[in-house]
């Protein structure tokens, strides 16, 4: 994998695909939820319309906020786009993968989240503080699960470099048990990280029950557009990681336009399927009690530990 012109182009296209398609996934999930609730729902392009609308609007910024509040959407956006650079989309490697592996992706998400939480506290609204503390609770608990999952995955797939991991996932013919358990764990982690039910209800208007939404409650206009866009990019990156690591089927292995196109189509289809699946789960479950959420996370921890054990039992 040398860093030639074509692979750089592919890397840029992959990143752009993630950044551009991200709101579409949110739209698909909302549409699915609406249909399961016997509603027609808004168009799957609605998140784009919302963002365009918000971009045109002025921002209202609390007087008691500092630079953190203004900078945080940008830091968040840049960190998730940077994370998107390292994720293989339609081809099994990401040319920028030389610069960062799975741990860097997690770290970048952590950076974005850290600033979102700071911004929630920064505006001195009681809901922001409430949201930040809840989000902190969940992220602190999810961390061990995440790292053991990464451990299980990198043991099985030979390293933490995403390109290597996806490549060996593509070549492996037998599904290792450690991978299955890591998948279960990562799935729960994705639900928590993207603020989905049963962790957090992204559709609620009740400030008192919010987690992620409460931290961004004070954003408006362009800031809000950026925050929501970052959130959906983070979502598509996580979904992309999930589908490419566990169901690499259809990912292109050669650098030709036709095969890349097919790879892209498979990627879109797979992530769309995953988001529809998650939307169905959200339909099936009520939001859990806040203090019952750790139970679910401990399930993720247990599952990932089992994954590691299975690797060594082999």
């Amino acid at each position, binding site marked *: 994998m040398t860093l030639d012109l074509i692979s750089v182009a592919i890397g840029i296209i992959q990143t752009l695909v993630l950044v551009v398609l991200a709101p579409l996934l949110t739209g698909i999930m909302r549409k699915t939820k609406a249909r399961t609730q016997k509603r027609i729902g808004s168009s799957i392009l609605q998140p784009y319309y919302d963002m365009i609308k918000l971009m045109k609007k002025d921002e209202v910024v609390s007087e008691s906020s500092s630079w953190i509040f203004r900078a945080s959407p940008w830091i968040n956006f840049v960190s998730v786009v940077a994370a998107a650079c390292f994720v293989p989309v339609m081809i099994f490697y990401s040319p920028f993968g030389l610069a960062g592996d799975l741990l860097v992706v997690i770290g970048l998400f952590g950076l974005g989240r850290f600033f979102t939480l700071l911004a929630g506290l920064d505006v001195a609204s009681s809901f922001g503080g409430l949201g930040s503390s809840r989000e902190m609770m969940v992220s602190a608990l999810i961390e061990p699960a995440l790292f053991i999952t990464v451990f299980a995955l990198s043991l099985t797939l030979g390293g933490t470099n995403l390109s290597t991991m996806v490549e060996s996932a593509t070549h492996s013919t037998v599904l290792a048990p450690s991978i299955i358990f890591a998948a279960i764990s990562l799935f729960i982690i994705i639900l928590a990280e993207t603020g989905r039910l049963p962790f957090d209800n992204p559709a609620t208007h009740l400030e008192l029950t919010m987690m992620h939404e409460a931290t961004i409650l004070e954003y408006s206009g362009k800031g809000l557009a950026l925050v929501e866009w970052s959130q959906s990019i983070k979502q598509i990156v996580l979904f992309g990681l999930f589908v490419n690591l566990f169901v690499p089927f259809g990912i292109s292995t050669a650098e030709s336009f036709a095969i890349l196109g097919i790879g892209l189509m498979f990627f879109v289809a797979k992530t769309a399927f995953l988001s529809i699946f998650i939307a169905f789960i959200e339909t099936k*479950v009520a939001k859990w009690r806040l203090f019952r959420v750790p139970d679910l996370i401990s399930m993720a921890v247990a599952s990932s530990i089992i994954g590691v054990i299975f690797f060594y039992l082999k």
Partner: protein
Amino acid sequence: MELSEYGLDIAAKFGEDVKTELINGNEIHIFADADNIIELCHFIHSNLGCRLLSVICNDERQISGMFVFRYVFGKESGEDVFFVATSSIDGKDICFPTLTRYIPSASLYEREIKDMFGLIPKGSSDQRPLLLHSWPEGNYPLRKDFDIKTKVQKSKDEYQFLKVAGDGVCEIPVGPVHAGIIEPGHFRFSTLGESIINLETRLFYTHKGVEKLAEQMPMEDVVLLSERIAGDESVANSTALCQAIEKIAKAKIPTKAAQTRTICAEMERIYNHLGTLAGLSTDAGFAFGAARLNILKEMMMNLNEKTSGSRLLFGVNRIGGVKIDLTDANKKMIISETESLGNEFYKVFEFLRKKSSFIDRLKNTGTITKEDAAGFGIVGVAARSVGIDVDTRKDHPYANYPSLHLDKHHDTPYHKMKYEVELQKRNGDALSRFVLRAEEIQNSIMLIHQTLRDLENEQPIWCDVGPLEPHLHALGYSESHRGQTMHWVMIGKNNSIYRYKIRTASFCNWKIIEQAVLNDIVADFPLVNKSLDLSYSGNDL
């Protein structure tokens, strides 16, 4: 009804100081002077086992030169009787004795009287303003010499909330403006992490002046006004008002009118309970259940429109009867639609009941203790959920309820016993309120069918209520989906209304939320709130 027995009881205790009088069939009025009124109320409350239903203050300075206080008590089980302990203070006095020493739930009424009449409950510990926010002193809206067109200069808002101090205690002010389309109310949480250690509510941000407004209106218009006290309780409130006026006129409304009122009241109960259950599901983050229930609610509201011409059942009642004439076609439509709704609802309810993640949210959330419920004098589903068996339809039957078979609970000694055991088991959490509401929906459908079966077809739907004699008064009451609605009307000159006192179920029930959340975390507050189904509008009169 052996009312003399109670009279004897009271006479034995208070001697010749108090006079009793029976009016309007079931109201025993007991007249005492300001010195022993509190003891009298205490006696009625504790010895006769009655609940305080309302405290009515009336500016009768033009009639007798006095401010008159009427403490309304109701007997909850057995006999259909109200006790109205009446006393008065001189028009120049500004103090009246407080009842809060014996009956804590009187506090709200006394604060209301302080705001509206400028009379001070002597000895009461809480004298903060209740209804009127940043209202200048010296303006007392319900006094007769206060002109309704008066424009007052708002003063500075100085309201003292309870301060909770300590390490790590955090205050979360919520409202009065909320997300979503709801009315204003301020909630001040004091929290320790997620746990709520104190909640204080402040309401009445949109005081509409309904009681004062009614005094300026022709009587027919007051019926329309009463429907708009709270849009979702239109039938309950207008029924209560019409019944009070009909009682004063001693008019016997046609059976068909009473039946129509019952049918509409039950239809109102169904659509509102469906809405509450849907809201509960939404607040638990279970949108699927909410969607299913909202479809049913919409079906019910469509049926309302087809029956009465209004989705919210406005324009059903008139003084002396009703305005809508149920035909055979209506009858068939209501029966078939409520039946299919009942079947569909049963399926949804069973589905929700088996949804563990949903039930887990409700179980042991927002628990009310029986002592608190009794102390605050709460009514309706909230009271029944802790095992206090109050239901105006049963305790003080009105409209067509006397001829209905309300439930199976009192059929045989076995049923009675079973019901007693069930009452004991109810622990007053959100789940028990959820289940109760669902049962009431099914029960309401049954009541509608029962009433429709006996519907008198060839009858007029209203009777004429002639001009009314001034200064007669009566209680009007009904059971809305939130609980007991208690109105009191005094007739003025030229067929006007001299005083219209409204007490809705929400007024009694709002304060209990402060107790209900104490064992919960902040994130569960919306669920507790929804499970109690409180109305802002029905409270901010």
